[in-house]
């Protein structure tokens, strides 16, 4: 048996909380909003992350955030499995808006380059073509169902695509993109 001295104790003082709270605040999640959570579990009831069996589903993510445990999210990828379904926002009796927390955590992790590689691929496609998801062979599929081979989006319109990229270069993407914005 290990003695009490070996128990991992987290010192829960304001100084400990401050850093992660400040970062979350900067990324769109107010700490007072976060601290309204009473851990009732309404959010977890229908959370796809919980139903799918991810270790950190919404209730645990809110809990860990209240405790300022940023390291968890740098090591564990559960927040990137959130389906953005917003059911948690709909049912939360304290109006914590848990999905807004997920997004804020992702933004904090993104700035530490702690995100799955497919996130980078989607973002690069979005910047370069204007579409996050591009499946090869779309021209043939479109023609098969009687449509023009190229849709009227940025993918077939270089002039507007360039303008779109100029706009995106003026966002936070310019500072944090893990690829060059050419």
């Amino acid at each position, binding site marked *: 048996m290990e003695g009490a001295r070996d128990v991992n104790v987290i010192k829960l003082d304001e100084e400990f909380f401050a850093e992660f709270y400040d970062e979350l605040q900067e990324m769109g999640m107010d700490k007072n909003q976060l601290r309204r959570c009473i851990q009732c579990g309404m959010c977890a009831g229908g959370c796809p992350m919980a*139903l799918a069996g991810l270790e950190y589903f919404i209730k645990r993510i809110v809990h860990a955030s209240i405790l300022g445990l940023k390291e968890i999210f740098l090591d564990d990828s559960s927040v990137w499995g959130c389906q*953005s*379904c917003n059911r948690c926002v709909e049912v939360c009796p304290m109006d914590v808006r848990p999905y807004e927390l997920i997004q804020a955590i992702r933004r904090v992790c993104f700035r530490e380059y702690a995100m799955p590689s497919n996130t980078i691929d989607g973002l690069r496609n*979005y910047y370069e073509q204007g579409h996050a998801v591009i499946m090869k062979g779309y021209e043939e599929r479109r023609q098969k169902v009687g449509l023009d081979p190229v849709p009227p989006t940025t993918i077939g319109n270089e002039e507007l695509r360039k303008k779109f990229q100029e*706009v*995106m270069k003026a966002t936070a993407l310019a500072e944090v993109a893990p690829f060059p914005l050419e």
Partner: protein
Amino acid sequence: MKRIGLFLGCNIPLRRPDIEYSMRYILKEFGVEVVDLEGATCCPAFGTMPSVDLVGWCVGAAWNMAIAEEKGVDMITGCGSCYGSLNEARYHMEKHPEIKEKVNEILAKGGKKYEGKVKVWNVYNYLYEVIGLDAIKEKVKYPLNEMVLGIQVGCHNLWPSKAHTSNDDDVFHPKRLKEVCEALGGKAPEYSTMLDCCGMGALGSLAKEKSWNLFLNKVEKMRAEINPELLVTGCSSCLLRFDNDQAQMKKEGLIDWEVPAVHVAQLVALCLGAEPEKAVGLAEVPIEGIVEKIRGGK
């Protein structure tokens, strides 16, 4: 004449353009002019700009909504993720004028301005509220003759309700998609897993097997309870899971059953008389039997 801006997104024009064909077809049939939104982009999808920066997300969404505003039209999308991302960004900008102001400073670099006038519709809400169930009933050429449908509304179409300008009255007991299906002559019984997530989306990329299990749990319960002949989704991402991924699960021997699946726009198109090769021409779970039944139904 009614006009509406067709917001395509990514999966509809590039992977399942049979949904795009169907949307164009039904809008035209109902006397609505379809306005193309040239230079529109991805909504942006939740795993892209929304996960990077709040203002950046709003910039991406406002780029698209500004195109519709330039043309003086509202927008319609068949994709739940687009519906959610655009509406949530619109809501953030409406609630926080300082975000909207920053967004417009940035948009100006591309010669665009977002005013906040545009309304973003999904297909079944537009059919329900703007076209109307009676007009749908009148136009039906091939009624469904009480075919049993397993309906999948789609999370983003319902929640967060505060961000949506058009929605079911009770977002935990949705009726609108059901009533649109009934206007086509179908039956859409409730089942216990109706509101469960289909598993498509970020979870599919992060943990494929776990996300497939969500679909299997949902549909196997649905089959046991209501035994549908056809699955009908209100969202194109759900359709990718219900059709394309279902076909893959069959191929891999995970399931020994098949239930064809369509997006609600495709079902309306079939019932109105669209050519099946175009309206459901890219379905992967065999759908010929259902098409034959629908077209032979009258």
